[in-house]
């Protein structure tokens, strides 16, 4: 279901213009991210889609139909909405929180609870959590419940207002990965609000950068916005290391993967003057064995130096550079989709590829 903003303006009663003549088409089945500094009208724009805020002028079309033509409550039951800080109902268990919309839509209790239990699993929460109350959950778990509750609408459209802002960076990254995984299964039209450009670039098929005063500054793919900011505002907003971040969109197809001597954990390594990659019986990298180390008998993991990040073949080149830079042997370990080590790359090789593609290969 596509969403279209046509000349949408929102002026609050106190005179604040939160959104100014917004024209934007959100394509069906994609993640579109609204990003911009605080107060630029992201939330207002989002909330006009499900009529939590009514525009002063202009039209919003959902699947071609003006949202104002439908009953507001029914419209909202058909649109998943994740609000900032989760907004879970404190007096209801996790399970009944998730079952809210199905119950409102008149499903019978048992079916609604079964559906809710399924969704807990979908967002990666153990079933036992269903019996708890929101106050008994961590921040990250609450955010997941918020997402599950929004998914229960089983609607083709999902609105998410800074859903991951209240959790620490590690948890946030996990939740982002999970959203991308879910989206690859569900293929919903997702409108996602954040003020974090990294999150926008990571999640968005398209990114809409808004400036204060509620004007659309730029709308395009993340690679576009990073590589060709339309003006100083966007350039400033996407930040200093946008060159490095832009590598997220450059394919590493041409990087030469070189062979590396390996030793097997549990085997007898012998002697060598080179760094050697230790792998387990499945061929997965476990760490590095430094040059001229002596090992008595079988090689165990305690003899090894911890490895750097791994680069999975076929993913953007940023990962390859990082693997090379973080490796104790200065050799980035390349793995296949199953996690088996297939060779190594050096930072020099990666840089060569980057230099030969000044415009990059966008995904």
């Amino acid at each position, binding site marked *: 279901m596509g969403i279209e903003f046509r000349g949408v303006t929102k002026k609050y009663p106190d005179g604040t213009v939160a959104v100014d003549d917004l024209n934007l088409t959100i394509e069906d089945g994609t993640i579109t991210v609204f990003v911009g500094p605080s107060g630029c009208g992201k939330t207002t724009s989002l909330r006009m889609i499900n009529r*939590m805020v009514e525009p002063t002028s202009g039209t919003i079309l959902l699947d071609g139909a003006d949202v104002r033509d439908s009953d507001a*409550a029914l419209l909202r*039951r058909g649109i998943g*909405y994740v*609000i900032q800080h*989760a907004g879970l*109902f*404190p007096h209801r268990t996790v399970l009944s929180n998730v079952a809210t919309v199905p119950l409102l839509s008149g499903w019978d209790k048992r079916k609604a609870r079964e559906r809710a239990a399924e969704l807990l699993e979908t967002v990666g929460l153990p079933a036992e959590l269903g019996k708890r109350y929101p106050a008994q959950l961590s921040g990250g778990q609450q955010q997941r419940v918020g997402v599950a*509750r929004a998914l229960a609408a089983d609607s083709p459209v999902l609105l998410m207002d800074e859903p991951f802002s209240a959790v620490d960076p590690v948890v946030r990254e996990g939740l982002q990965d999970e959203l991308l995984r879910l989206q690859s299964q569900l293929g919903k039209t997702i409108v996602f609000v954040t003020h974090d450009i990294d999150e926008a670039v990571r999640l968005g098929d398209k990114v809409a950068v808004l400036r204060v005063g509620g004007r659309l500054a730029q709308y395009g793919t993340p690679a576009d916005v990073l590589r060709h900011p339309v003006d100083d505002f966007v350039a400033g907003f996407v930040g200093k290391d946008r060159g490095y971040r832009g590598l997220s969109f450059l394919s590493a197809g041409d990087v030469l993967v070189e062979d590396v001597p390996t030793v097997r954990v549990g085997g007898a390594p012998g002697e060598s003057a080179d760094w050697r990659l230790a792998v387990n019986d499945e061929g997965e990298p476990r760490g590095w064995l430094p040059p001229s180390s002596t090992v008595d008998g079988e090689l165990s993991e305690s003899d090894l130096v911890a490895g750097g990040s791994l680069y999975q073949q076929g993913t953007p080149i940023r990962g390859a550079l990082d693997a090379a830079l973080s490796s104790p042997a200065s050799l980035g370990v390349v793995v296949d989709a199953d996690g088996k080590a297939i060779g190594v790359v050096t930072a020099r090789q990666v840089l060569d590829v980057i230099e030969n593609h000044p415009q990059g290969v966008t995904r």
Partner: protein
Amino acid sequence: MIGEIVDWFTSSANWQGADGVPTRVLQHLGYVLLALVLASVIAVPIGLYVGHTGRGGVLLVGSGNVIRALPTLGLVTFLFLLFTDSDVAAIIGLVVLAIPPILAGTYAGLQAVDRAVVDAAEGMGMRGGQRLWQIEVPIALPLVLGGVRNAVLQLVATAAVAAYVGLGGLGRYLLDGLAILDYGEVAAGAILTALLAIVLDIVLATIQRALVPRGVRLAEAGTKKEVEA
């Protein structure tokens, strides 16, 4: 003094008939409950409406303060002169007295519901009534019942004083005892009034504990811990 009180309580005459303790306690309880029900019927809907819609909050707080400033005894006397019926005058006076705490509790309870929660309810597609009864009222319950408890304490005390316009109940012991300078009886009336207040408060506290949803109690405990930390 203590001897007089003990004598009074152990005299079987004081436990029987129209002026006996059981009758007086029941009477007193009757006034309190009647006034409480009438006041709730008036105050709770108004509090819910104002708290839910956010309309008229200033007016509500203002009129609550005006009512609180009224001298209850003066009001009861005035009503007595108006109606020349002690029961009607006293009950109306008590109702007026009980309205502000219930109104304030209900309104404050709804106001205290987290904006994000109200927002989520609306965003999930709840209609006004669904949001009020399914979300706002259960979460507001601790403060609503707190208001009711306040009202009951005030009612028990004031119903005793209202005996002087001719109302029955425990206040009779105070007034009749004073009239014949029987301090044992006066003290007994005061003790019984205090006991009734305590017992009622314990009963209401129990009801409150049973009615307030577990999740709300957990959330409250959580915020308290955060504040302490």
